[in-house]
């Protein structure tokens, strides 16, 4: 790790917010009885991460930015009525949701239906505990942070399932089944892609991964391009983002597991979907894009600012795919998980394990070889994706150049044969 440029540990040095929090906690430790300081630490952590970063990001990047950008992508304005440029729209939305009536169907399982949104929120807060915002800004620097994150992110599926089941409504149940099936299928390539990163860096701690990327002056995205692509697709499938949101596909099953929710219960699901996407973005940035480092710039700019900007940039990828791609069908998504992403993730793991052994045994862990591996892996990733698509993929059906009705009515006029294989 580099020496922090002019870094001090004075409480007013806001380049590292941990100074401020440790000053408060030290002061409190002297005057308050034992044990209070832990509660205070938890509260400070909650306020710092959730109220300063997550909630504003949810409101203004998640809700507003997403709607504005998707509006832009789809050639419309997006929200522009409440406040200048529509900035106050998320607040208006939240107020509207708070004042709406929460309906409960007569046949619903009331307790489960009531608990599901609450249980959906809890992991969204918990998962921020292991995300490093800066060199010292991490709540729980546990050695198994990566596994902790995976464990926590497997919990919201259960809440979604409870939501879908409790309504006693067939569309909700379809949504619940779909979300469970998706979670099982996409968890495997997700974990396998992250396993490659763990094999390379030889650590499960997210902070250590950031230090590794800082030490070798390379982002793991370059060494593990295939893993990053698999992570992005798998995580957006697990998060139910739009190209893969078949669990609440409104054109097929009303709103899936959210069908019977209204008011703030629905609002919690909606808001925390964005929270999970932000969490996945933060995790992806930490693992694949160098976390709070930016090739030395973190000595000049506060590390947490770099991190927040990177998270928003990663979140932009989610918005981009959401605005651009049409929704897929459930059989397409299932076969994509099992036939395409799982074998590619296994190949990726094989390649990275071989390289790791080569690197340790033959090259003594020399720094330049990692760049060689990066180039090789980018080529491998391209070849694997192309080869697998050639092997298992199918060409999209060509649209007929003449309307079918005309042909069937006999009004056939010979035209030049269609491009490629004509019908």
């Amino acid at each position, binding site marked *: 790790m580099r020496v922090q440029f002019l870094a001090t540990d004075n409480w007013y040095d806001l380049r590292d917010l941990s100074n401020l929090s440790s000053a408060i906690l030290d002061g409190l430790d002297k005057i308050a009885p034992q*044990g209070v300081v*832990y509660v205070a630490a938890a509260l400070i952590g909650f306020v710092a991460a959730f109220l300063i970063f997550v909630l504003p990001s949810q409101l203004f990047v998640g809700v507003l930015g997403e709607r504005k950008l998707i509006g832009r992508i789809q050639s419309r304005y997006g929200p522009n009525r409440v406040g200048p440029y529509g900035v106050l729209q998320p607040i208006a939305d939240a107020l509207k949701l708070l004042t709406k009536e929460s309906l409960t169907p007569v046949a619903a*399982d009331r307790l*489960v239906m009531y608990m599901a949104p609450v249980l959906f929120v809890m992991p969204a807060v918990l998962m921020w505990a292991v995300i490093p915002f800066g060199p010292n800004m991490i709540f729980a620097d*546990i*050695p*198994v942070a990566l*596994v*902790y994150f*995976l*464990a*926590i992110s*497997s*919990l919201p*599926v*259960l809440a979604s*399932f*409870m939501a879908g*089941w409790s309504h006693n409504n067939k569309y909700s*149940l379809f949504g*619940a*089944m779909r979300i*469970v*099936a998706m*979670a*099982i299928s996409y*968890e495997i390539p997700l974990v396998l892609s992250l396993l490659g990163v763990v094999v390379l860096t*030889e650590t*499960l701690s997210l902070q250590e991964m950031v230090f590794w990327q800082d030490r070798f002056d390379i982002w793991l995205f370059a060494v593990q391009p295939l893993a990053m692509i698999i992570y992005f697709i798998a995580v957006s499938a697990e998060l139910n983002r739009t190209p893969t949101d078949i669990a609440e596909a409104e054109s097929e099953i009303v709103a899936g597991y959210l069908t019977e929710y209204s008011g703030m219960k629905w609002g919690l699901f909606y808001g925390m979907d964005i929270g999970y996407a932000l969490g996945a973005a933060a995790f992806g940035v930490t693992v694949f894009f160098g976390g709070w480092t930016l090739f030395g710039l973190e000595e000049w700019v506060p590390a947490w600012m770099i991190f927040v900007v990177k998270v928003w940039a990663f979140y932009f990828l989610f918005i981009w795919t959401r605005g651009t791609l049409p929704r897929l069908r459930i059989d397409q998504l299932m076969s994509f998980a099992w036939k395409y992403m799982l074998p590619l993730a296994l190949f990726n793991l094989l390649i990275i394990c071989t390289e790791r052994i080569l690197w340790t045994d033959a090259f003594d862990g020399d720094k330049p070889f990692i760049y060689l591996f990066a180039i090789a892996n980018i080529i491998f990733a391209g070849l694997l994706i192309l080869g697998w698509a050639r092997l298992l993929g199918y060409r999209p059906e060509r649209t007929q150049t003449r309307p079918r009705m005309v042909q069937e009515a006999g009004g056939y006029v010979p035209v030049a044969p269609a491009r490629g294989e004509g019908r």
Partner: protein
Amino acid sequence: MEGVGVTIAFWVLAALTLIAAGGVMVSRNLLHAVLFLIVTFIGIAGFFVLLSAAFLAMAQIIIYVGAIAVLILFAILLTPRAGRGNSETKFALPATLLAISLAAVFLFVIHDTDWEVVQEDPSLAANQLGEALVGTWVVPFEIASVLLTAALVGAIMLVRTPEEEAEDALA
């Protein structure tokens, strides 16, 4: 781990786990039983944390809560007549007797074993665990996975209908 907080956490977790386990038995609704079972799993993960085995705790949550509980939910969804209220069954009495005798055996073993108390922090790191699993204990590890695959294939064979068999014979 030592301290007052750990003791409190132990008793809270123990109460939570036992109440949830009781809920699994008492609950008439199958899905409620599964939800109680999930709480039990999470409580056990909490015990692993108290024993300084953080990796095991996380693995417990990923595997039992994230995968096995979800699979049980799926099995319930796919089971016909898994209604909201389950009626009485004639197996209630034998099952209770079996459970009581099993509990007696466990209690007897736990009581009679001469438990060795480790003084220092065991600090079970994930890489040591991995080396043990695919190094020393690689054969049991692999046999377990073969067993699971066999169980999977067996389950698929068991639920096949004659119509599906006929379809496959034609294909």
